[in-house]
């Protein structure tokens, strides 16, 4: 299993388009974060004696809570590119018939998919941690004169762990959809559609409980503060839904990979 996983990691890191999407994601993240440093510093400088801060005009909230919410939210927006990256990692197999070579090398399909999932998960985990670390670094620049210890508090670390779980599980869902569809493009379309349903609140209009079953909505429910955001379920529900999406799609991918000829 170790050798197969190592080979899958090599496939990931030697594919130029993976580096391009990774680089673009990180560059965009840095660009967005760099623009928020001054805004965060200004907001922190104006914290009231009662410990409240005004992030959005006319809305005062406890400063600690607001800063931690901002920290997680800043990582959340860029992590929406990770399912696309997951789809590209899996979709490489279906370009130029590489899947045939992969099955020649690792003929047990279950073992092959396990190695692929583990390798993709490790790569995406490293990227999610890097995104979270960048968010912390830029937030530190904004609040260092107020309460820099807040960024390593238990609440902050828990928030970051939740973000990493969301990013990896959602990206693995995109990865698995690409295996099921045997197409990077279809997987990207499906994941973008899932994101769009949450963004447009189309499912919320029908039933909040339905919205809570969507992966991005589950991510919001897991990561954001219910006191300042309109959420459709609690964090435990969100984590369960995200794990369910990843598990169900990977299981479906395993069945498809096993039943189909390697084409």
């Amino acid at each position, binding site marked *: 299993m170790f050798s197969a996983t190592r*080979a899958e990691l*090599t496939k990931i890191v030697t594919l130029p388009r993976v580096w391009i999407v990774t680089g673009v994601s990180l560059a965009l993240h840095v660009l967005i974060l760099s623009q928020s440093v001054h805004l965060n510093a200004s907001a922190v400088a104006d914290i009231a004696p009662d410990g409240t801060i005004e992030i959005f005009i006319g809305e005062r909230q406890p400063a600690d809570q607001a800063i931690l919410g901002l920290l997680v939210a800043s990582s959340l927006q860029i992590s929406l590119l990770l399912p696309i990256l997951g789809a590209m990692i899996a979709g490489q197999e279906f370009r130029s018939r590489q899947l045939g070579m992969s099955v020649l090398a690792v003929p047990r399909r279950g073992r092959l998919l396990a190695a692929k999932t583990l390798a993709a998960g490790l790569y995406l985990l490293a990227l999610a941690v890097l995104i979270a670390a960048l968010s912390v670094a830029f937030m530190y620049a904004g609040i260092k004169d107020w309460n820099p210890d807040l960024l390593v508090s238990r609440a902050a670390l828990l928030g970051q762990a939740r973000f990493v779980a969301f990013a990896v599980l959602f990206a693995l869902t995109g990865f698995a959809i690409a295996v099921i569809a045997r197409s990077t493009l279809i997987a990207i379309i499906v994941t973008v559609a899932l994101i769009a349903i949450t963004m447009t609140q189309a499912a919320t209009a029908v039933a909040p409980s339905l919205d809570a079953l969507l992966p991005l909505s589950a991510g919001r429910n897991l990561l954001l503060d219910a006191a300042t955001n309109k959420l459709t379920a609690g964090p435990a529900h969100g984590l369960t839904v995200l794990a369910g999406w990843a598990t169900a799609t990977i299981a479906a991918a395993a069945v498809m990979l096993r039943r189909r000829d390697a084409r």
Partner: protein
Amino acid sequence: MIEITGLGKRYGGTTVLRDVTFTARPGRVTAFLGPNGAGKSSTLRILLGLDAATSGTALINGRPYRDLKHPLRTVGAMLDGAGPVPERRAVDHLRWIAQSNRIPRARLREVLDLVGLGGAARQRVKKYSLGMGQRLGVAAALLGEPEILVLDEPVNGLDPDGIRWVRRFLREYAAAGRTVLLSSHLMTETSDTADDVVIISRGQIVTRGSLAEVTSGYPSLEDAFFALTSDRAGTR
């Protein structure tokens, strides 16, 4: 030793292989011949675990391919339906294959030099000519120093020098006691290389035997091939 027995394959309502049976033995080059669409690639894909058979068995040293531990160290294969991603460098393509079967890294340079791609190892595969792509396929097949080689149309796209190299290489490989099974539609090349011949037409084996047995009564292998595949003269 490769043993294929009663192999059948159906796609929906279409039968592409029917009761395909033959053996490729150690120390011999076995040519697997047939017109386009006759079932050569389907047979090889089933043998190597890429496609599932509807019936029959395809065994390598008495076991299905998927039961081999580190299969590339037993079987080296080059198939039309198993290639590299064009954007990846050739050396990286070989590296992941080697890692998957615990093949030493030093072997990469050896096989690249062996097939004449030592100077182009760091090029992306999309910049390769058809012949260079074929050489890379042969390099991948040889990575694990396998005792069995399965090559699907290995000389396609090769220049005359490359074709001669492949012919000599396969002869030497078999002479060392190893098994070589190659599919081809080039009769002259095959008759210069093969010890045994298996001819398939419309999904069924029409003849099998040593080169001398198959060509007996015909001026050449090409004449035997066309006589046997044009009118389906029946299994000999």
